[in-house]
């Protein structure tokens, strides 16, 4: 049952992403993307990472995408709409590059056989211990980075006398 659910969610994720990147209007693209992220969160849940799944919903689908939406709304959507979808020619090279990477890693990954690894589920407790005991500095770095994101954003956003 869970296996089927994974494949269904995978298909939903991929279709949602494809729709998002081909969508002409950024607002619609965000909506497609949120769908895709929701199903990705469900996949995380299936892969024994409930915390990550939760954060995916809260931070990505919730905060980050809303931030995007907010900025799109703020910057005159009519104008961005007119920039239009890129022509067919512009898709050529990116598509080729994408397909090269996809085929190179994808085919290898498809044939990737791993030794079955008897692993116990990762509990929240284990997660917390790893996070705070093993990667103490990482938290400090990331919190500093978040702080400076605010500093930078404020600096850029400050209105100046021309």
């Amino acid at each position: 049952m869970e296996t089927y659910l994974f494949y269904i969610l995978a298909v939903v994720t991929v279709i949602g992403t494809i729709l998002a990147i081909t969508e002409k209007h950024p607002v619609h693209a965000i909506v497609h993307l949120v769908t895709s992220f929701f199903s990705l969160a469900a996949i995380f849940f299936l892969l024994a990472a409930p915390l990550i799944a939760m954060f995916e919903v809260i931070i990505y689908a919730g905060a980050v995408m809303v931030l995007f939406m907010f900025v799109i709304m703020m910057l005159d959507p009519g104008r961005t709409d007119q920039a239009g979808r890129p022509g067919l020619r512009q898709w050529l090279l990116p598509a080729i590059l994408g397909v090269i990477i996809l085929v190179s890693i994808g085919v290898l990954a498809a044939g990737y056989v791993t030794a079955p690894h008897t692993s116990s589920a990762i509990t929240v407790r284990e997660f917390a211990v790893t996070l705070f005991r093993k990667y103490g500095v990482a938290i400090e770095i990331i919190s500093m980075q978040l702080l400076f994101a605010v500093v930078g954003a404020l600096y850029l956003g400050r209105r100046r006398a021309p």
Partner: protein
Amino acid sequence: MIVPLAHVLVLAVILFCLGLICTLVWRSNVIMMLIGIEIMLNAAMLVFVGGACHWGTADGQVFALMIMAMTSAEVSLALALVVYLHRRRNTVDTDEFRELQDQ
């Protein structure tokens, strides 16, 4: 592990390439480029979570969490820059920004 690790990897690679294509194609809209990068980072997170599930260690999940925090920082700065640029030039088309180039 409910599905083979290989299938998780394939899904991640597909997402990664879609994100890459999105970034490269949407030169006319910085916001869409940023969205493409978000998709790519999500693919990386998926690989981490899959790996963590496979090995039974929490390291991958921690890394995924850190990526999430890092991208939200990056996105907020990037969007602030986009707002700033839009205010100056009234466009989000990256190809319009060509003041710096070889003479």
